């Protein structure tokens, strides 16, 4: 089975325990140890400065065919970006193949008034959008998502307004199943990273919505890669379904990106 991890970070964090894997060499070695073939990676520094961090990311992963760049973005505006009209186009030309938003950490709204202009550009390039609602005020995150729920109302509103964009909810929450069920039912373009799930949620969501609505991600290096690998390996679903979740669907989404 080919594993393509959609949720991997490069770059040092502000705590040594959280920075044990922060270089490309360390990451590749970690992936080899866990039998992970490919990873979609973002850079920690991009949470502070998207422009600088995304450039660092592309510089660091250059020549490493197993690593694909995921750019961190805030909504396009003239203060955060030197050239908001062309920023995304340049990023895609340079190798960015997906976009990740941190509305909690970067303090912005997922509502259309904040996001529409950015998503119109994203739609042009058919980039998959990863939403990470992790909240810096909750010290348990991302280590335990018990009691945590992403902004499913905001995600629903965006996904309904932009049905051509695939939205992947990262860290979907251990006890947020009612939100997850409702948003998967209402929006065919929403998918869930199958980390932080509760008991047999992979089996359940596969049986109701199909395996193509789940994507494997591990939140490496903050969370334990092996834990989420095991959740998928031991899920009570078919091998074909596991292969879609492990990497098949993510690969298909990335192949659909339109490069200018």
């Amino acid at each position, binding site marked *: 089975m080919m594993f393509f991890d959609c949720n991997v970070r490069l770059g040092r964090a502000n705590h040594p325990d959280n920075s044990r894997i922060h270089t490309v060499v360390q990451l590749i070695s970690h992936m080899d140890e866990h039998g992970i073939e490919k990873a979609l990676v973002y850079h920690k520094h991009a949470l502070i400065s998207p422009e600088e961090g995304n450039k660092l990311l592309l510089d660091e992963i250059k020549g490493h065919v197993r690593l694909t760049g995921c750019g961190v973005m805030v909504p396009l505006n003239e203060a955060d970006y030197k050239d908001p009209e062309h920023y995304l186009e340049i990023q895609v030309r340079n190798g960015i193949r997906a976009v990740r938003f941190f509305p909690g950490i970067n303090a912005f709204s997922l509502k259309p008034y904040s996001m529409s202009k950015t998503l119109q550009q994203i739609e042009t390039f058919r980039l998959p959008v990863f939403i990470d609602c992790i909240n810096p005020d909750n010290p348990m995150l991302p280590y335990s998502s018990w009691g945590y729920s992403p902004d499913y109302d905001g995600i629903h509103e965006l996904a309904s307004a932009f049905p051509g964009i695939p939205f992947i909810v990262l860290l979907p929450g251990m006890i947020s199943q009612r939100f997850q069920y409702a948003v998967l039912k209402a929006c065919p373009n929403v998918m869930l990273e199958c980390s932080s799930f*509760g008991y047999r949620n992979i089996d359940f969501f596969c049986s109701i919505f199909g395996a193509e609505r789940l994507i494997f991600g591990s939140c490496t290096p903050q969370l334990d890669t092996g834990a989420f690998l095991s959740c998928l390996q031991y899920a009570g679903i078919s091998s074909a379904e596991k292969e879609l979740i492990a990497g098949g669907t993510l690969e298909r989404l990335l192949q659909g990106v339109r490069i200018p």
Partner: protein
Amino acid sequence: MSRILDLAKRGLPFEGELLIDSHCHIGPTHSTFIPFNNMQAIVSDMERISIRLACISALTISMMGDPFLQNDRVAE
């Protein structure tokens, strides 16, 4: 590589190993639904993975609900 690690990486059952699940729950809870939340499903999973024993309690006893009723359900 240890045998257990090798089996885990390949998603195979832990036949011949002693595995005891020390933290297992059953029953509904207030804040979410839990699919396949019944004894047959849990036992079937244990057999599939080769877990010999599980220490099980009702999920919501510590948070809400009637602990006597829920303990009775677990005992059943």
